[in-house]
């Protein structure tokens, strides 16, 4: 993908001011996102995935409670470029939900329970496109149809609690797509759903992406989902990118011990080897962001750690196949069997 990236994030950092001191939730995150591409963001709970994406949407609390660093250049439909982190709140509001949309994990809390879903979708269309109420409602009906809600036009008058979790997530997607965004940020959109419904939603997202050429940042901690939809993967740990690259090499030949650990933690269905060997778990838990280890953040849990690892943080360096790895031992480990 040689074209200019839609979104270019450089050195994004997000620090919360807390009672116990500054809490670095996201540290020096850089990535590019091109049209039609799906970037999966994976990592354990608390690794900063949601905060990073909320920062791009400028949905984190304002300074001084949060300090943002770095830049995020977004290429709008009219060809203009904006730094999302420096944009005036007004201009940001115009982009948000229009050119960049977001869907959240819990569809019930992100839909307003007292408004009919048709009105909620139409509202976004009216705000961003100035359409008439009637036209907006008609468009809302089309969208619901497009996201596979049976009997869509009649459902316009339903309230969120009338719908199942999967249906609500479809409504959220319809809302996010109301203005054909160029970038969609999906924060664990299927985590709360059953696998059968998750499969439907993933299929739907793929179709829509195919039709609109929209770029997707897909946050998940389910590596199966990553293998299913991602073009590229970014693995986060303690606010840092620890491995980034094209999906297949990262998922089949992970270099960073943390990525490996994640992949080996997942049980696989194979009738021949079922349950014969224990899973290789990653010991311990994620570090407390207020007391990060001085060197490699993963060192306390890393089976390959050496004294040097704990001394200084390793850099994020290229490791072939267009991939970046943050581990001082990746060369040695690349030769060892996974």
């Amino acid at each position, binding site marked *: 993908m040689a074209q200019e990236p839609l979104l270019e994030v450089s050195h994004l950092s997000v620090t919360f001011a807390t009672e116990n001191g500054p809490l670095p939730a996201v540290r020096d995150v850089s990535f590019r996102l091109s049209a039609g591409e799906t970037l999966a963001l994976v990592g354990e709970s608390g690794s900063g995935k949601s905060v990073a994406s909320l920062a791009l949407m400028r949905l984190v609390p304002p300074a001084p409670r949060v300090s943002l660093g770095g830049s995020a250049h977004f290429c709008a439909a009219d060809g203009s470029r904006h730094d999302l982190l420096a944009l005036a709140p007004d201009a940001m509001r115009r982009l948000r939900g229009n050119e960049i949309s977001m869907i959240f994990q819990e569809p019930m809390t992100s839909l307003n329970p007292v408004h009919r879903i048709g009105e909620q979708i139409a509202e976004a269309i009216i705000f961003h496109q100035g359409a008439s109420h009637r036209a907006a409602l008609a468009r809302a009906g089309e969208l619901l149809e497009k996201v596979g809600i049976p009997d869509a036009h009649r459902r316009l008058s339903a309230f969120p609690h009338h719908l199942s979790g999967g249906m609500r997530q479809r409504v959220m997607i319809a809302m996010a797509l109301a203005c054909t965004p160029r970038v969609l940020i999906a924060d664990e959109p299927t985590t709360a759903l059953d696998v059968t419904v998750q499969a439907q939603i993933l299929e739907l997202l793929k179709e829509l992406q195919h039709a609109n050429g929209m770029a997707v940042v897909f946050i998940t901690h389910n590596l199966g989902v990553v293998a299913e939809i991602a073009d590229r993967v970014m693995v986060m740990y303690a606010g840092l990118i620890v491995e980034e690259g094209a999906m297949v090499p990262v998922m089949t030949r992970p270099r960073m011990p943390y990525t490996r650990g994640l992949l080996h933690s997942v049980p696989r269905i194979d009738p021949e080897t079922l349950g014969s060997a224990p899973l290789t*778990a990653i010991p311990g838990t994620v570090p407390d962001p207020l007391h990060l280890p001085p060197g490699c953040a993963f060192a306390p849990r890393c089976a390959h750690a050496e004294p040097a690892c704990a001394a200084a943080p390793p850099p994020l360096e290229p490791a072939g196949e267009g991939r970046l790895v943050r581990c001082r031992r990746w060369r040695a480990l690349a030769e060892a069997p996974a």
Partner: protein
Amino acid sequence: MTAGAPLVEVTGLRQWFRVGGGFFGRQDTVRAVEDVSFAIARGEVLGLVGESGSGKSTLGRAVVRMSVPTAGTIRFEGRDITRLGRRALRPIRPRMQFIFQDPFASLNPRMTVRQIVGAPLAIQRPELDPAARAGRVAEALQTVELSPAHLDRYPHEFSGGQRQRIGIARALIMEPRFLVADEPVSALDVSIQAQILNLLIAVRQKLGLTMLFISHDLAVVGHLCDRVAVMYLGRIVEIAPTRALFRCLRHPYSQALFSAAPVADPTLRRPRILLTGDLPSPLAPPSGCAFRSRCRHALPACATAVPPLREAAPGHAVRCIRDDVALGPPG
């Protein structure tokens, strides 16, 4: 009781809930568990999978008598416990324990780890002297690999995985024979999930536990269980030894569930069976085979009666009238 008798035997179990009612509301009945029968041999781990709302938790809770079943019988160690009252159940309780899904809701926020893990002793063996109790608590913590340094901390000071360990320690301290684990790893990150699964496997071997392991994740169930039962709308639709099940999935719902589970290996792309729609409302399940509304193999005959659970191969029972839809080994 012979040595070969199952530890737990459930026959024709039904658990219904009345919902609605009030002044004008219509009263409805949710048939959360409908005519479920199975037995778990001593030392066996039976897995229970299905979508949310299929009745897994309701079944698990009924089996350890956290509820009063609507109909059917539950035998534990050969004894019918279906209708036993609170007092009569009390001496049996220590031998059957429960692990909860939500590691945040299942620990009393105002109690320390010492009190939580020691609660079973305080309740069941109040005569035990403090030193003996402390010893047992320390031992239980050691089994779940938690440090005694944590004894006087409160639950909110722990991560999800650590809390789940505390819950397991509480369940194990009375050395139960039977353990129901209701999605014990669903709320955890994958890496922590693996820690807890390994721990459960280790304690199972150490204590010779019999388990009913509930999960919505087929891979997790496959990893841990000897036999697997698949539930759909309150009924078991397929039950088989794990290996036999994964070699040959016979029920169209099991097939869909299996094929929908994403696999973390991009070189393994399986054909997808996409189910349409959601789980039907348990208030108004379809007539005949409840899976009919989403089944791609449905025939007109499927609407007439609930298919019986029939043995399609030794030890492999399936609730489907068709015999020609089995799905070969996956992968």
